[in-house]
């Protein structure tokens, strides 16, 4: 016979269900990374995918234990201050040139993990040549490409990846493809190059997408370790401030409009997609 009465047991259960008895270190299942994500407020707008991408990438670096072997290159754009949040050695590149800077770092120190983190203007407008040539050479680096179809930092101009009809400050009547050309599916273009090992398109607007993006980042770093070639993780993302909508509405725009144009999934894998 049990020493405890039913009432005692129920009291015990009620007690253990109290918040303070759940929020104990032994029950912890998720806390933001304390080693690789610098504990400081991020300047990004509420709901911005940049913050999410920073967070999960730093989780990957922490979980893989490669903080001391990683060197990153920050772009010009909203994420120009990426080095204030990522606790790894980093260099700030000139606008568009991150792939050139990353190439040099990797050529000098092939044993390190090297990544660039770039937006759509940095990678696919001013930096197109550096991006294409790094991919063509099969530079053994990871490029994290945040594609939100707009220029965030400079307050909302058209990007090479802006959708047809999209209203921006430089396309106030909507992007007209006969004048401004078509949106650039740069990831699909790069995938045609033999030096490219892995290109995938993901997003961070829903929990499952966040999980998949994190896995993609980890895979890309594992491929880098094996020396398989150029890896790019594109993250189709939002810009609530410049679309002048709430974060949830901006994510709905990602779901309804961006993703149909930039479909998610692996575009090229080393196994041969």
């Amino acid at each position, binding site marked *: 016979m049990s020493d405890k009465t039913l009432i005692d047991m129920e009291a015990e259960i009620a007690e253990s269900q109290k918040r303070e008895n759940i929020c104990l270190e032994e029950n912890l299942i998720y*806390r933001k990374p304390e080693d690789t994500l610098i504990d400081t407020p991020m300047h990004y707008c509420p709901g911005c995918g940049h913050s999410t991408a920073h*967070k999960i990438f730093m989780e990957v670096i922490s979980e893989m234990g490669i903080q001391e072997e990683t060197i990153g290159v920050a772009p010009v754009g909203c994420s120009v201050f990426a080095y204030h949040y990522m606790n790894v050695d980093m260099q700030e590149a000139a606008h568009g040139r991150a792939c050139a800077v990353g190439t040099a770092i990797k050529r000098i120190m092939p044993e390190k993990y090297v990544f660039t983190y770039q937006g759509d203007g940095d990678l696919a407008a001013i930096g197109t040549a550096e991006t294409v040539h790094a991919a063509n050479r099969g530079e053994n680096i990871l490029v994290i490409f945040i594609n939100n179809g707009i220029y965030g930092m400079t307050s909302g101009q058209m990007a090479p990846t802006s959708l047809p009809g999209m209203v921006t400050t430089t396309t106030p009547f909507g992007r007209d493809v006969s004048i401004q050309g078509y949106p650039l599916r740069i990831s699909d273009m790069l995938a045609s190059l033999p030096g490219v090992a892995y290109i995938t398109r993901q997003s*961070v*607007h829903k929990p499952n997408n966040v999980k998949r993006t994190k896995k993609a980042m980890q895979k890309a770093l594992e491929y880098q370790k094996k020396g398989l070639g150029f890896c790019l993780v594109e993250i189709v993302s939002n810009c609530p401030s410049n679309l002048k909508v709430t*974060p949830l509405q901006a994510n709905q725009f990602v779901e309804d409009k961006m993703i149909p144009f930039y479909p998610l999934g692996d575009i090229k894998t080393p196994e041969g997609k």
Partner: protein
Amino acid sequence: MAKVLGEIVIDIERCKGCELCVDACPEEVISISDTINSKGYQYAITVNHDCTGCMNCALVCPDAVITVYRKVIREPRKTANVVEAN
């Protein structure tokens, strides 16, 4: 029989009230408060104890303000010999 209990702790000073967590939570645990933090954001708060520790909120949170706890409770089986309290 096991019961999964979750709880989240929100760093309200770092929360920007973007509401992504509110939308992501399958149990409607999270809502936006009427008060603001020192940056002027109306921050997220928990409004019930239905959390299962699924981590959806922490996954989507851009600013990494959510810490998640999960505890599995084993509920006791009721036996025939129950001694009633006097």
